[in-house]
């Protein structure tokens, strides 16, 4: 049965790859990236064997703790937990819970990330090759450590999907979870700043971490090599207990997920009025009203929204870290960039509901413009306030025209670019109702690739005002700033008009083909 579950994992991966060649490309790129990281890690671990015992111990403990922490946290941020085998789908089969746990764990180990982690962890044996007993212990501890990583990440996934039963509660928690995750960067930066400032204290920090569940198992080989067998034994027990606790929590979570698949929803909001639709009179206005309602009701959009207020917080932090106000001044343009490109997957988010637009024969340009209006209705004021507010805070008023030009350029050109991109391509995004964190196999990488391409495209489109603004910041000549503002508004508006028209024509011409693409992603 366990072998069957593992086989199922690869068959699902293989079958889903067969449907789209791009996913193969994405998976290969993901694999190569993993291989590169792996080579560096293995070489580094082997290299450690030629340094001092203390250094080797410090590095293995801290790196191990970070990897374990990463396994527990990162899946929630970036590309979602690998849910190739969704336990809820297995609920109908009579599989004993323990068998299911073992099968899911092993299928996790055999994923790309699992294989990379396993090889890296086993390479710690290389670090200790001149202490044979420690090297042997390293292999045993690597197995336990890797299992803790996988079970830990499954545990978090199970707990997260179990918290709350109602649709609303689930969605709200999913989105709120993002706040600490976005702020993770500054937290880590603060910690690493603290650490690099006092490299001498690192061994002591490693020693402390080695007593925590995160670091204990990775410290055992080092302790053996140093001849402290008692400490090694204690830490080994801590490591084992960690794995056991993770497994126990996961087991409870999984049992609950199997008994109550999170599908049923409780009472929901009711409203008599038509809300935003009561003002809509044209197809464009209707699309705008619908899009705006989605911005606030759909967690996948709320995810982009919630990042907005965090941008100034993040930049404040980084500028405090680097001691310059430059970061704060960038608040407006960066927010503009983030918001303008947040709709480049808009039609993909609609999923097959987009069929309604085709059935009713709404003009493509009306569709494009409506979506832009919905976003602009809050993006323009927010960006204005952020730009002026940041300059007010730093007192760099002479930079205001240039910054406004950059913000306007990024926002308007971004609207235009998003209008073309979202009308032409369907992307692998979470379907409506799915967790915003859920990733499809290979979807994470292909989405990142297209996102990278879109961002590069926007940077090129904004180049004129960017150059002018930079010249004005460098020379202190306000004239160039005003020029940047003029170019940003004029060029941006022109690109927006072109984007909406062109995107609209693409939709008019290729609507049915786009729907076929969307249906394939369903």
């Amino acid at each position, binding site marked *: 049965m366990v072998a069957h579950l593992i086989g199922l994992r690869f068959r699902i991966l293989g079958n889903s790859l067969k449907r789209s060649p791009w996913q193969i490309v994405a998976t290969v790129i993901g694999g190569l990236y993993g291989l590169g990281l792996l080579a560096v890690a293995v070489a580094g671990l082997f290299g450690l064997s030629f340094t001092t015992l203390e250094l080797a111990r410090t590095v293995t403990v801290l790196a191990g703790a970070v990897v374990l922490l990463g396994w527990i946290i990162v899946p929630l941020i970036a590309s979602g937990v690998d849910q190739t085998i969704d336990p809820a789908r297995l609920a109908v089969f009579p599989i004993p819970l323990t068998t299911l746990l073992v099968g899911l764990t092993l299928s996790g180990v055999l994923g790309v990330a699992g294989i990379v982690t396993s090889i890296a962890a086993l390479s710690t044996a290389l670090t200790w090759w001149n202490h044979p007993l420690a090297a042997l212990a390293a292999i045993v501890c690597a197995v336990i450590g890797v299992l803790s990583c996988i079970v830990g990440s499954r545990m978090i996934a199970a707990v997260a999907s179990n918290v709350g039963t109602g*649709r609303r509660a689930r969605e709200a928690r999913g989105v709120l979870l993002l706040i600490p995750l976005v702020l993770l960067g500054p937290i880590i930066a603060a910690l690493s700043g603290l650490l690099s400032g006092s490299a001498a204290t690192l061994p002591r920090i490693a020693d402390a971490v080695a007593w925590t569940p995160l670091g204990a198992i990775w410290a055992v080989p080092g302790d053996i090599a140093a001849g402290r067998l008692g400490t090694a034994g204690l830490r080994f027990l801590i490591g084992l207990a960690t794995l056991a606790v993770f497994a126990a929590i996961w087991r409870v979570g999984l049992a609950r997920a199997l008994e109550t698949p999170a599908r049923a*929803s409780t009472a*929901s*909001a*009711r*409203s*008599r009025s*038509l*809300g935003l*639709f009561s003002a*809509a*009179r*044209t*197809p464009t*206005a*209707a*699309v705008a*009203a*619908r899009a705006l*309602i*989605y911005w606030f*009701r*759909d967690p996948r959009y709320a995810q982009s929204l919630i990042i907005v207020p965090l941008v100034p917080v993040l930049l404040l932090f980084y500028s405090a870290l680097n001691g310059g106000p430059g970061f704060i001044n960038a608040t407006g343009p960066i927010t503009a960039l983030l918001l303008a490109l947040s709709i480049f997957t808009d039609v993909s988010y*609609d*999923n*097959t*509901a987009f*069929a*309604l*637009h*085709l*059935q*009713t*024969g*709404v003009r493509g340009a009306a569709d494009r413009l409506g979506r832009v209006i919905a976003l602009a209705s809050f993006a323009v004021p927010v960006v204005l306030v952020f730009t002026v507010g940041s300059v007010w805070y730093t007192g760099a008023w002479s930079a205001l025209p240039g910054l406004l030009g950059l913000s306007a350029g990024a926002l308007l050109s971004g609207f235009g670019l998003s209008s073309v991109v979202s009308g032409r391509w369907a992307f692998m995004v979470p379907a*409506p*109702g799915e967790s915003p964190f859920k990733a499809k196999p290979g979807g994470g990488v292909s989405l990142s690739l297209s996102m990278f391409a879109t961002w590069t495209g926007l940077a090129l489109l904004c180049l004129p005002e960017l150059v002018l603004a930079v010249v004005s910041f460098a020379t202190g000549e306000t004239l160039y700033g005003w020029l940047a503002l003029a170019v940003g508004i004029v060029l941006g508006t022109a690109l927006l008009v072109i984007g909406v028209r062109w995107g609209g024509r693409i939709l008019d011409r290729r609507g*049915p*083909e786009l*729907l*076929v693409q969307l*249906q394939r992603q*369903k």
Partner: protein
Amino acid sequence: MADTAPPALEIHGLSKRFGEKVAVDDLDLTVPNGSFFGLVGPNGAGKTTTLSMATGLLRPDAGDIRIHGVQVWKDLLAAKRLVGVLSDGVRLFDRLTGAQLVTYAGLLAGMDRDTVAERTADLLRLLDLEGAGGTLVVDYSAGMTKKVALACALVHAPKLLVLDEPFESVDPVSAANITDILRGFVGSGGTVIVSSHVMDLVQRMCDHVAVVANGKVLASGTTDEVRAGSTLEDRFVELVGGRRTGEGPAWLRI
């Protein structure tokens, strides 16, 4: 005059293949004006594919489709104004309330605000969704979702209604109400095409029927012609084949 008016839907030589698989194979079909037309066929017969192509949602590889004389793939907008569609297996904008969704469909079709408001209220009442008009569609039951999708198809008062599996998971009372509405629509001169698996329902409801299998029309005509004295279900099995005799494997007998 009635004889010279073009049929509600006329399909000639329609073909569509997905990779290796031929979904629709040189299909011809004529749906007379004012008929209540049933499209029946086994799973994978090409019903949904045919209806998607006929309503401008899927581009055919070859063939000519006319709705009331308008060539669908030459003049998409004019064709879409004539037809109301209930698609099977597509999502709805389910973060809207029922009333919002129907309003949205009406506004997208280019209707003016007051007419949309009036018809939305009528449709929700007609389909027993009045109490649920303020609830998000995502929280609807499967049957209610079907009904609100039907309201979206009806709101712009089309001359031809194309309904793919409209009765799936709809409770019997609602199904009877929907049937009444559709009969009234046909009685006032409209044309309805429904695809369904439920032969009994089609036999009682439809005056015309076509049997489709493997992307071809096996039989088409008035319901009485097609069933030729026997029941539609027996006739269907006879035409399509694939009926197994016997009691299944021994281990399945308790």
